[in-house]
């Protein structure tokens, strides 16, 4: 049976992990490769690296990081953050990334999704969508959720699926950082209307939240950062909890 995936997300700036990480036994808490290895050992099903550095030279640093992660880690990983062209994607995939995620660039130029799916295959194209509820409507936001668009979440999700996305990573800006649970109502609607997998993001604070997003939210995978970084929820504990709750996970 296909299992639900648990995906730690690592925020990367200039090749280093940001957000203070205090793992025991980790020589260098800011080293994304060491952290990735650790997550892989603990049973993470996939990893996401989100590059939040704003400099132009970051592309080279990011490709180097991807290369070093692929060298050490034998589970799949996705790389995102500021990717805007097929050229960017080619560099990252050649360096060893399994999938890439596009966000703002796809909103600004939706044809990018078709180009990437055609050139590299849908299986490696994740479209990340940040959205926020405004006047009862889920509105897509850009630039890490800072800038609102006029696009509605569900319309956009259908469009990116039609254009060839292999997966959708949906982050609710209303839930992100709150630790009050995922946006399960919106997630459930997304997951039901789409035929591609949906990754839930934003709001993880407890093990129950993961269970709820897989059952109520019908998510195929759940992504979180701080609960894993700060060891509030160890991955092995989370997975055995989910198994007890009759959710299929890889143990």
């Amino acid at each position, binding site marked *: 049976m*296909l*299992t639900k995936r648990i995906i730690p997300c690592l925020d990367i700036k200039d090749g280093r992990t940001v957000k203070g990480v205090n793992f025991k036994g980790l020589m260098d808490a800011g080293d994304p490769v060491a952290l990735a290895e650790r997550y892989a050992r603990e049973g993470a099903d996939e990893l996401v690296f989100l590059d939040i550095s704003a400099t132009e030279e970051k592309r080279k640093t990011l490709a180097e990081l991807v290369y070093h992660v692929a*060298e050490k880690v*034998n589970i799949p990983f996705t790389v995102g953050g500021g990717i805007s062209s097929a050229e960017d994607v080619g560099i990252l995939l050649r360096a060893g990334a399994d999938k890439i995620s596009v966000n703002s660039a796809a909103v600004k130029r939706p044809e990018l999704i078709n180009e990437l799916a055609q050139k590299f295959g849908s299986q490696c194209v994740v479209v990340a969508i940040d959205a926020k509820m405004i006047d009862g409507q889920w509105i897509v936001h850009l630039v890490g959720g800072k800038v609102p668009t006029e696009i509605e979440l569900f319309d956009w999700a259908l469009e990116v699926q039609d254009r060839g996305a292999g997966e959708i990573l949906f982050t609710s800006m209303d839930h992100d950082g709150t630790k009050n649970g995922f946006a399960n109502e919106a997630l459930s609607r997304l997951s039901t209307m789409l*035929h591609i*997998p949906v990754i839930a993001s934003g709001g993880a604070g407890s093990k129950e939240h993961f269970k709820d997003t897989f059952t109520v939210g019908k998510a195929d995978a759940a992504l979180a950062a701080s609960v894993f970084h700060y060891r509030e929820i160890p991955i092995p504990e989370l997975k055995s909890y989910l198994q007890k709750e009759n959710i299929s996970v890889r143990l």
Partner: protein
Amino acid sequence: MKLSIIDYGAGNIQSLIFAFRRLGIEPVVTDNPEIITQSDRVIFPGVGEAGSAMHKIREHNLENVIPSLKQPVLGICLGMQLMCAHSKEGDTSGLGIFDTDVLKFDTGLKVPQIGWNTIEGLQSPLFKGIKEGSYMYLVHSYYVPENTFAIAKTTYGVSYASALHKNNFYGTQFHPEKSGDAGALILENFLKID
């Protein structure tokens, strides 16, 4: 041992290179028929769309080279599918090593199947030391139905062949290079096959 990874422009080759380096083997990445033919082991990777991948195989003049290889050959993911007779994806004729069709998932479940699923009914030296029900990483929209060449099965709405074997040819629908320690053991077993 000389191991070639066939490079025809359709595959996550870097991950495969690293996976074999972790096993102490430095692979040769090549589209040169002579080098491929003279290797002890050959890996036939593949991601993307079947039709354009077959087109690339022909562009690299490999459509006759691969089926005539005599050493152990391992096709991975789309590589395995292209070793079959025909794929519904783009109505594509494959290399015909395994006389079976490749069909599209049509069970109401999400397509592509992305993630970790179990392999069962293991029957090959490729799976030496691998437990029944081990988890492997899969990403695919098309599948090979159960057939006489199946050496592993996986269920996703339908039970299908997730690994194939015939003579010196092996195929896995899953990505051993991305399937943790169990996947690494499968690659190691492949290196040991006579």
